[in-house]
């Protein structure tokens, strides 16, 4: 390996193909193990919670009070595990951006594509698409698995009942939107640990802090918290949820707005800052 024969190619010889930025980002995403580990973790926990919830309710149905039986939401209970998908998809979304800073790959990326806004847009497309597919597969999977374990006399749900299909679809959409929100956060923060901490802070810690404050102050804000929204959109029977809530459509709209704002700020900073 001490000698190197240099080809006689001149720059003109190399054929020019189309730049495929989205394909490039997909190559990056699928060629690191963390992507597949995070998806596996999402699947295990989300489906696991659905299985446990379904069989636990079936076994304990005889202990439920009449009120509990009437307000029981068989859809919502099997989708509770999506909370973990929402947390883990944050890691996926963050790493897509922060791992580039951590490893220095960002320099190769931005040298190859100096139009930086397009880089973040392409990342958003692949993260959004992968998280949406994963979210829908897991949401439908958790619902179907949970329902198959909810046996009579326990109530169970079918997709044809009012509001059920919407709840299951929205469960997957919420996962995708939170993945995009995490991507935007990472573009702002640029460090894996910092971005993941911020993400978990917004998702879990912020609502906890709000709950310690007087309800007159916290209640109008609480309904805009991502965790509150995802709880609302994955429910068909709204009884178990504390305080006022946004409608499912408004809730999804707020999650989309959060993602758009995070990516917008992240993109602006990406363009302005030194790499």
């Amino acid at each position: 390996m001490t000698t190197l024969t240099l080809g006689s190619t001149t720059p003109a010889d190399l054929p020019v193909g189309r730049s495929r930025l989205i394909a490039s980002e997909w190559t990056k995403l699928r060629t690191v193990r963390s992507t597949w580990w995070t998806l596996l973790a999402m699947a295990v926990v989300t489906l696991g919670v659905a299985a446990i919830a379904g069989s636990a309710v079936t076994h304990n149905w005889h202990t439920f009070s009449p009120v509990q039986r009437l307000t029981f939401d068989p859809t919502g209970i099997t989708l509770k595990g999506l909370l973990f998908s929402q947390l883990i998809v944050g890691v996926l979304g963050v790493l897509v951006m922060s791992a580039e800073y951590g490893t220095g790959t960002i320099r190769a990326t931005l040298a190859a594509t100096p139009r930086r806004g397009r880089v973040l847009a392409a990342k958003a497309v692949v993260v959004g698409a992968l998280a949406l597919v994963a979210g829908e597969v897991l949401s439908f999977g958790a619902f179907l698995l949970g329902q198959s374990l909810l046996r009579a006399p326990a109530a169970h749900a079918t997709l044809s009942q009012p509001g059920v299909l919407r709840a299951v679809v929205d469960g997957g959409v919420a996962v995708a939107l939170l993945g995009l929100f995490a991507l935007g956060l990472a573009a702002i923060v640029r460090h894996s640990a910092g971005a993941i901490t911020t993400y978990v802070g917004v998702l879990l810690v912020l609502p906890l802090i709000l709950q310690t404050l007087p309800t007159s102050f916290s209640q109008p804000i609480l309904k805009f918290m991502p965790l509150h929204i995802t709880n609302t959109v994955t429910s068909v029977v709204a009884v178990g949820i504390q305080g006022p809530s946004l409608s499912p459509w408004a809730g999804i709209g707020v999650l989309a707005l959060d993602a758009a704002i995070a990516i917008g700020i992240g993109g602006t900073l990406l363009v302005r800052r030194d790499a």
Partner: protein
Amino acid sequence: MIEVHQLEKRYRDTVAVRDLSFSVPPGVVTGFLGPNGSGKSTTMRVIMGLDRPDTGTATINGRPYAELRHPLREVGALLEARAIHPGRSAANHLRFLAQTNGIPLARVDEVLDRVGLSEVARRRVGKFSLGMGQRLGIAAALLGDPGVLLFDEPVNGLDPEGILWVRNLLKGLAAEGRSVFVSSHLMSEMALTADRLVVIGRGALISEGTVEDFIATTAGTSVRVRSPRTAQLRQLLEAQGASVTDDVEALDVRGLDAAQVGEIACAAGIALHELSAQTASLEEAFMSLTSDSVEYHGRASASPVPTGRQAR
């Protein structure tokens, strides 16, 4: 062709590069020489469009980096820090780069072969040695078959075999008509690799020109002379065009060789107590040149004429 014009880059209160102008022509290796912290990596990042300059411009083939539509086809770079995800294979690293610039994927195997990494193409980069990582970085730089190449300290940490390999690679690339710009903090390395030199110290240009000129003006010999009639001798030598510095007991004469100094003294009947030729090593010359380089920043100019500016 790289052209840098009156570049200035500040990081908070550090001025990393100031009023820097030079050019990197095709067909030769241009060395970028300066001590650690003198602004070489910063300048290269600015050329690559990664860092934004405060003032001034850097262009590649006449255009700023940000305006290049397929930059990898025009510029390739191996930047200082190893910038590759350790979990990805060598082939996949090059594949995603190729996709961004519409480069045929067959080219990935081609460049891996060129740098001798074909056999480890599917292995994760985290398992690579420093030398292999460096080769992969070079493969990435060559991916788009660019006419302009930048290498930031490419031989750092390499074994002698690897150093020789890089040296020959750079020369070969220049011989193919490409503009090759390579940084180092070692004068000895540059003397072996480069045809032209851009020398900076504390972010400012010290000299730009051919390596021969640089060596002639900076590492040139001086003559040490001791005599009881120093003042008179000094006048005579300076009248002959020498530059003379007083070194307490002796005179340090540049511009004349020992024989000429001896002849002049003899003709004037001045006794000499010592007459010796002093040879500064290239490395010493470079260090003396850059150690107090801050005084040159006002004189750095964009002169395209290869002239070595010399320290006094």
